């Protein structure tokens, strides 16, 4: 269950030469929360995560955990999966996990137990003595997640953990992330799989050009947008909705139209106008998917 502890990112900025990668970015990921971090390529997601991990130094701003700025000791408690995957190619799987566990302060036997547990969980138990480079890309990805989890981290930061995974691996990854969040960790991950993010995340942040453009539950994001209606009137002539006050045509799909209502417009007026043209087969409030919400907010900032 979410507690009052949170990973807080406050006012961070980072400039590379003339490129402003992140500007005054701020949001919080609560403990026990699965948090999706979305944005176009180059929006600043990886830069933000690297700043959280201390791999990059921010020009301004602060990252806190449980109210205290992150220091090196706390950062070592973060399980991190970088965008650029990397483990030792010639090291054996179990050995590699044990090494990383020990670097994070575990005893040898504890690291071994944890390493074996995660290999088992990811279906890699029979590859424990195989060199990493002999594994398939998907299995290397699983190893990368195991490397982030082996030392029982307090926080998880994962850069595109789902990229390149097959559907079975996606299910395993999803279950593990959910389970870690339920165990009380703040879990933040970036992804371009917006359907997946919508399905599994408690909250979502959308960033564009290094700035936060939306943050909240998917329902929150929907509430912020204008009301939209799907109306299917097979018998109506095209353009029947033009005469309805406060309604704007967004899209036509066959005989269905998607209408956007101006604030304060009564949807019953729209229904009556539709009925006046013939039988109405469908009349429902449109629930925009995250993909649509994403396009909307990104479209606004791009314009």
């Amino acid at each position, binding site marked *: 269950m979410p507690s009052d502890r949170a990973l807080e990112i406050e006012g961070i900025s980072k400039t590379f030469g003339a490129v402003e990668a992140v500007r005054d970015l701020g949001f919080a990921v609560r403990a026990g929360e699965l948090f999706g971090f979305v944005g176009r390529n180059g929006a600043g997601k990886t830069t933000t995560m690297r700043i959280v991990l201390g791999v990059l130094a921010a020009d301004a701003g602060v990252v806190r955990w449980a109210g205290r700025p992150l220091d090196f000791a706390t950062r070592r408690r973060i399980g991190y999966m970088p965008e650029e995957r990397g483990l030792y190619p010639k090291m054996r799987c179990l050995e590699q996990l044990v*090494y990383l566990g020990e*670097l994070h302060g575990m005893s040898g036997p504890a690291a071994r137990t944890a390493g074996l547990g995660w290999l088992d969980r990811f279906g890699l138990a029979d590859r424990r003595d195989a060199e990493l480079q002999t594994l398939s890309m998907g299995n290397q990805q699983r190893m990368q997640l195991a490397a982030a989890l082996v030392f029982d981290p307090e926080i998880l930061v994962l850069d595109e953990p789902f990229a390149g995974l097959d559907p079975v691996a996606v299910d395993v990854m999803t279950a593990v992330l959910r389970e870690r969040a339920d165990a009380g960790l703040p879990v933040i991950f970036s992804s371009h799989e917006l359907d997946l993010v919508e399905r599994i995340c408690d909250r979502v942040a959308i960033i564009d050009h290094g700035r936060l453009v939306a943050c909240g539950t998917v329902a929150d994001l929907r509430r912020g947008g204008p009301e939209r209606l799907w109306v299917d009137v097979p018998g109506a002539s095209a353009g029947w909705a033009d005469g309805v006050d406060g309604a704007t045509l967004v899209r036509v799909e066959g005989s269905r139209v998607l209408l956007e209502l101006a604030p304060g417009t009564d949807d019953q007026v729209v229904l009556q106008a539709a009925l006046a043209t013939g039988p109405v087969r469908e009349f429902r409030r449109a629930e925009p998917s995250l993909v649509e919400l994403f396009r909307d907010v990104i479209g606004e900032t791009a314009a």
Partner: protein
Amino acid sequence: MTAPSGRPTAGAWPIVLLVARREVLTRLRSRVFIGGTVVMVALLAIAIVGYSLVGGRTAAALRVGFTGGSQALEQDFSTSATALGQPVRVTDVSDEAAGRAQVSAGTLDVLVTGPATSPTVVVEQSASGVVQAALEHAVLSARFTAVGIPPGVLETVVSGLQAPVDALQPKKPGMTQDRVVGLGVAILLFITLGLYGSQVAQGVVEEKATRIMEIMLATVRPSRMLAGKVVGIGLVAMLQLGIVAAATLAAVDTTHVLTTPALGATAVLGYLLWFLLGFLLFATGYATLASLVSRPEEVQGAVTPVAVFQIGSYLLAYLALANPSSPIVAIASVLPPFAPILMPVRTTGGDVPAWQVGLALALTVAAIAGLIWLAGRVYANSAMRIGARVRFMDAFRG
């Protein structure tokens, strides 16, 4: 769950040792280490055995045949030659013609023929000084006996005949042997420093190229990572050199090919100490420059400045062997980065003043300390700059 700060922070040394242990285990398993050690030991064994067969013939017993009256000289000759350090095997030969045939066939090294008081020596090319001296002694003894002087008188007259020489700058005995050892030390130090220095360089770049660096930097401080790598690879190198040194000493001990203090246990430990210092110096330099690039194929170019000093030290070692009293050699041998190769090579001659060795050690240790500081700074600043080569001054400033 523990509080964020509730976990103990691992100290510097456990981390350095963990990183070092990984380097050691990974490398001990590699074919490069096993194969490299076998090849080095094999090459040295071949060199030593070959030397004992070709150059070290003096150690083998000389076959000397006597014929006619000279056969009376056999026992005296044999005793004198052995006393002069030349083992001989003396045989009777039936007549001069048969003896000459045996010498030209190579089954006899020396034939002594004619009367005991004025014999003739028959050899393939030349007779060694030892053979002539021993024969001279035997003939002298035979002539004394011929004129009725008892053999004991000769010893009394001859003993102490050679005036003692008080050399102001005595030439060391076994100078050539020392040079052989010095050359071996120079070659071995140069090869292993280069081999393991480039392993450090490759290791640093591998971590950048495979991007494991990003996980590591989020876990381990760069300076500890660097220290662990240098210590780990250094231990592997010391182990390999130790094996090679032990095998060399064993081979030398078996074949008796070289007998010089330059191959004593103390001297060998000294060479290992210099290797350790040289390794710390060069490996840190290699690691610093290698951290500026991101691709394995760029390493060679990046580390060239350090390699130049290493090759320079190697070339100076040849100068030191050819001209040990050269002031250039004396000055360079106390200065890093030349000292770790040049000083041990000089010490194989055995006549380096202790203060020069001490100064060389002190300056080298100081240089290592300074370089480690520099390396930590450059490495930390360039470790996450993946892509184009980082300019040294940018990495230094951060």
